[in-house]
């Protein structure tokens, strides 16, 4: 009975996750790079920013949508869609 219900459900393919770093908010503290279990993010040097560093999404295809970077970012700078 249960298996029939499961089989009848149309398979919905989930959209691939999109990680977005907001340039103005990011202060380059490196916390998101540390908490990410699949190393999606890296820290890069930027010349036109007072803090000097910003997190960049380098391997978006590795993201598992665990939301840890979004929860642990202290600066409201990361959005995971």
């Amino acid at each position: 009975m249960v298996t029939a219900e499961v089989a009848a459900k149309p398979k919905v393919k989930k959209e691939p996750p999109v990680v977005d770093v907001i340039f103005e908010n990011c202060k380059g503290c490196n916390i998101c790079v540390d908490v990410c279990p699949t190393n999606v993010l890296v820290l890069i040097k930027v010349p036109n920013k007072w803090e000097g560093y910003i997190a960049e999404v380098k391997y978006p295809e590795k993201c598992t949508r665990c939301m840890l970077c979004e929860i642990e970012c202290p600066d409201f700078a990361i959005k995971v869609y």
Partner: protein
Amino acid sequence: MTFNYDEYVRTETIPHMWCPGCGIGIVMKSIIRAFTALKWDKNDIAFVSGIGCTSRMPGYMDMNTLHTTHGRALAFATGIKLAHPEKHVVVVGGDGDATAIGGNHLIHAARRNIDITLIINDNAIYGMTGGQYSPTTPPHMIASTAPYGMVEPNFDIAKLVMGAGATYVARETISKGIMLEKYIKTGLAHKGFSVIVAESTCPIQFGRRNRLADPVELMHWLKNRGVPKTKAAGMAPEELQDRFVTGELFRDDSRPEFTEVYQQVIDAAMKKENK
């Protein structure tokens, strides 16, 4: 999928003034997620703070906010709660604001068991005024007013408020944002004085002086100091020295709440007057 913080945030004030790697942002996000989970209307919340880095938080929150004098946030909050017992009153403060300058207000609010939720962001230092040691600075740590290391023993805030009579006490480090959100949510919903201690980081004033200037390194140091409640039960007291126990530490639903007790006084006085 992404969480929308904009409902409770004054978006025009972001990016905020806290230093890179400061833990207060994580605490603020946990509070907002707890408000959203409880579906509280922002017009029904009074968000009160004193002075300090943590006490800048009401400036970024889009609700009824009050920025009061140093350490006196709980005194103002008690007034709000007694005038409007049906509203939700939330107080935020740093360790210095809540336990040193406002220490007396803290123990007496806990003694009354008034329905206020206090969230203490414990970063073990006075961040805004230049890194002076606070009552929660761990022993032997360097501060600007303790250049040879802290010689005084530090406060255990959870034990202090438990002894004073708070009816919900929880503690968690900022490295576990989801657990912090859960405890804040339970504390907000709890009727009575609830205290949530968020063990936080200050990389600029605390970390730099203690060779932990990297926010990630400091966060790992903090995470290793925290011991979960279940694990701590089987540990010797010597092992728990210089560490703190995390989790839901105390809960008591049997004690009467202050505004309810005070309503009985009002009713009795009105009865006598109308006779």
